[in-house]
């Protein structure tokens, strides 16, 4: 017999859970604390003093702005490419039958299962072979490989839960392919696309490994941070930027989580 007590965890488990969560998140908190330290050569604990001057310093450094702009541009364009390709691919795999459908499905997901370093090396040698100079667009291409996956995964889950007869019903009522997409498909997969797009943006925004192999002289924000860590000047600026990165990536992920959480009912199930 189960009683209400069965839902209560023993104190030991609670302590262990708290310890694990602290272990995971305390270092992140440390990053935030060091953004306010007065010591700029090395990280000493406890910080000798607190200041907000590093925010002003970061604001006025052009290299920070360059890196941030580049990252936002790369993430936006990669996400856009991923949204288009991922949705088309999910539609094809879920709505039609064709030879090699399962293989396509597997190959699309592969880049995210593959270690980034392999994707990076592979892309770099491919770009070299094809004599493509490393540029903004090679970074975008590299990021798009794994951004497509998250959009595809979100879209296909929603497509599978959307009854195929909805599309037939729309056609039956006089709508052609484009009208059906606009009035029926898009409203039904919209939140999944927004969620997938936000995840893709966040993934691209903090990507390091693939970027190091596909970038030329450009430094995205995470690359800039790596370079900055080895230089002993104005260290807390890196921490300020780190805070921004955390916020910029965390907000979309939170939004994506909220958007997909409510989407559990089956779209278009008749009975």
């Amino acid at each position: 017999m189960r009683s209400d007590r069965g839902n209560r965890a023993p104190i030991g488990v609670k302590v262990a859970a708290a310890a694990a969560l602290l272990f995971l998140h305390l270092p992140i908190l440390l990053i935030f604390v060091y953004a306010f330290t007065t010591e700029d050569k090395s990280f000493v604990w406890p910080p000798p003093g607190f200041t907000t001057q590093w925010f002003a310093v970061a604001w006025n450094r052009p290299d920070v702005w360059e890196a941030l702009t580049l990252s936002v541009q790369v993430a936006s364009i990669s996400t856009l490419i991923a949204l288009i390709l991922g949705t088309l691919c999910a539609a094809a795999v879920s709505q039609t039958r064709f030879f090699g459908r399962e293989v396509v499905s597997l190959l699309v997901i592969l880049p995210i299962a593959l270690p980034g370093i392999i994707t990076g090396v592979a892309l770099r040698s491919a770009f070299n072979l094809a004599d493509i100079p490393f540029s903004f667009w090679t970074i975008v291409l590299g990021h798009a490989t794994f951004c497509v996956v998250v959009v595809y995964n979100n879209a296909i889950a929603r497509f599978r839960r959307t009854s195929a007869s909805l599309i037939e019903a729309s056609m039956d009522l006089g709508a052609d392919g484009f009208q059906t997409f606009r009035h029926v498909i898009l409203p039904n997969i919209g939140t999944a696309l927004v969620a997938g797009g936000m995840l893709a943006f966040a993934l691209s925004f903090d990507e390091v490994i693939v970027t190091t192999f596909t970038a030329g002289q450009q430094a995205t924000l995470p690359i800039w941070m790596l370079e900055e860590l080895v230089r002993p000047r104005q260290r807390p600026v890196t921490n300020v930027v780190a805070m921004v990165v955390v916020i910029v990536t965390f907000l979309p992920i939170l939004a994506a989580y909220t958007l997909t959480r409510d989407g559990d009912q089956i779209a278009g199930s008749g009975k």
Partner: protein
Amino acid sequence: MTPAVSFQNVSRHFGSVRAVDGVNLDIEEGEFFAMLGPSGSGKTTCLRLIAGFEQPTGGHIKIFGETADGVPPYRRNVNTVFQDYALFPHLNVIDNVAYGLMIKGVDRATRTRRAEETLELVRLPGYGARRPGQLSGGQRQRVALARALVNEPKVLLLDEPLGALDLKLRENMQEELKSLQQTLGITFVFVTHDQGEALSMADRVAVFNEGRIIQVGEPEDIYRRPRARFVADFVGSSNVLPPDLAQAFGGPRRWASLRPEDIRIGKTGGHAATVTGASFLGAATRVACDVNGARVNVLLPSGSAVPSLGAPIRISFDAAALHPMDDAA
């Protein structure tokens, strides 16, 4: 008169599966037409061929005399009530019903008014603001009906529309659909596997099996004069007598159909039989008998004396009740 829908030697093969195989059929304008058959008999594929979701692999379909070859669903003046209703979950009831008008470019005020009128027609007024998810099965069915009818189709296709409803609701909807069809005068093509539904609602019935039409006719015709063993057995579970027994019962030496309710049980006259089972059906009792090794079912009206198991009895019937069939299919 031009038939509303005309099948001319139509086939639809999926690889080696012959879902529809050489169907010839004319559905008249204003008719309530039922396509009856077990699952996988090709009746739903025929409906989808009319709607345009499938294209025939052989033969031609004409809708009001015009060829439907290569015409996509959105350019056909037919509308479908889907088996799962397929209501748009992101739209409320009014916008669902007005969808076809919105696509045609009718302005919002007009389409809302017409959607409301149509909802009234299917006896679901005042539900416009609700979402499909907030409706019961029967209500969704009415919305699906309204969504199709608001476009004033020349032919309305219904794919097992009552399948998901419970018995009481189904009986009510049968009557309503029938009177709706008579009021509007639109051709209804109705797919069902329920022979009772087909017989009670349709002006004419086509019985499908294995992608072919076995028989087309008025319900009474189909029921009284089945042409083939399959029809006799599928429609109303008739006794299908092998040629020997048919001859012994006084008919020609051919396969024959003998309706269980046409047989009387007595002590004298007729033919000798042994009772092997009885099941109570409510309005009647079905008595299973053994006649020379063949099983013959007898339907006794409720209230009549049911013979006990193993009792030797005599069964008799009017000579006209024994219906010899044309082919052995």
